[in-house]
């Protein structure tokens, strides 16, 4: 009975934990100075892989992208999409849930369903979390909010994008 209950719990537990995915991306856009500017920007950002919805906040000068659950997220496409629409991408903030992994000796986040990993930069935040009451294990799901470093394509080839951590926490189940 106890063994059955434990097995059932272990089977249910992963389903209760938030799936690994990109949740929300906020990109600040310079030059977004008119309503029809927003139209072209919205159209361009909707073409980014995995995007479900785009909202453009004109006066705030930013766009919010929400992604489809479980689908790959084209994070590297966001900056170029803004440029192609005729504006200048500034800070890109990402809220993403994934699993902590090691990539060539560096901490990284693996996003299930996504081809790319994100290198994590922000040693203090990671160390504080590891030293905390409930340090994450290698298989833990964590939610990270950070700014995406935009790397030029020649340097990006085969190299993960870097996420500069603002906040990191164990994902809620």
């Amino acid at each position, binding site marked *: 009975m106890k063994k059955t209950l434990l097995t059932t719990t272990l089977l249910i537990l992963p389903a209760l934990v938030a799936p690994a995915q990109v949740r929300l991306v906020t990109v600040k856009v310079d030059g977004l100075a*008119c309503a029809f500017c927003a139209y072209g920007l919205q159209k361009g950002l909707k073409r980014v892989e995995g995007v479900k919805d785009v909202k453009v906040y*004109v006066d705030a000068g930013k766009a919010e992208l929400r992604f489809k659950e479980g689908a790959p997220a084209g994070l590297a496409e966001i900056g170029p999409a803004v440029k192609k629409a005729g504006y200048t991408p500034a800070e890109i903030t990402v809220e993403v849930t994934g699993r902590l992994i090691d990539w060539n000796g560096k901490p990284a986040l693996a996003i299930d369903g996504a081809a790319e990993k994100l290198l994590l930069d922000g040693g203090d935040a990671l160390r504080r979390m590891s030293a905390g009451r409930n340090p994450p294990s290698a298989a833990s799901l964590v939610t990270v909010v950070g700014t995406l470093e935009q790397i030029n394509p020649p340097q990006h080839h085969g190299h993960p994008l870097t996420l500069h951590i603002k906040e990191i926490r164990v994902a809620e189940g």
Partner: protein
Amino acid sequence: MTSRTASPRPPSPALPGNRRRRLPAAALSLLLLLLPAAPLEAQGPPINTDTAFVNGLEGAAFRTFLFSVRRSGLSRDGRDVDDPLDREVSVYGVPIIFPYELVKNKLVLAVGLPILRKEMTLTRDEKRRTLSTSGIGDAFIKSKLLLVQHDKPGRTTRFAMTGAIKLPTGKDDERDSEGNLLPPPLQLGAGSVDYTVGGVFTHVRKRIGFNADAGYHFRTQARGFAFGDSVTYNVSLGYRLAPKVYKVYPARNHINAYIELNGQSSQRDRARGRPLGDSGGTLLYLSPGIQFIPANFIIEASLRLPVLQSLNGTQLRFQPSFTVGMRWLLF
């Protein structure tokens, strides 16, 4: 008075031979020049002035509008004089303009074709008579190349170069009911291929937009006649009346207001190489306007009030007119 050198054609009763019966055709030449230079080439918000943007509306919006130009009241060297023929000229045009962004955020091409109606009403032999033409005018192809783009949060500064070619697709041999050739400014087309080069500057910051453009128009000759070269210059200040804070695009109550100065200075027309005294000059309009943007299209209207007219020789004066139109995002 001007006339085309077309010896096979019978002369118009208004042509040289009877000065008292001449139509001030040369006096109307500024009219024709104004048509392609002002509304037809002023695309995108603002209403009568160009903008340095090549994306958004500039690269993806179909545009059409109704514009009018009216002239009446004779002026000689700046002084009002009696007009024994009591002439009135009205021009109505509906240009249809399609843009296409050839290179994303860099180069846009626009093709335009105007539908025109021109009327001149005058008194002759104590009877009120009307000469009119309707149909397709001269088409144009315009390009705009973005050269400078400086973006900051909530604002942008841009500069673009423009170039255009006007093609002789409009008829230039319309005749009146008696078979006489109408004067060149009343023809639907100029009969010539003309060229324009220019530049546009834009600075937009949150609710305020400033745009300025200038262009030089090279006119070539057709059948011995050439309209004078001209310079156009336009300045616009726009302000977003509503919403006060633009949150998420699209806002349903978006209204812009504009105040513009639209000007043109033209050389004299030339017939057989000789300048015509009653042609050319400088004209400046003050144009308040308003735009309503409910979704992905614009409805706009503008008054055009002539505030400065320095017309060479004897010409009909320009009267207040209007522009009403729409733009619709296609792509």
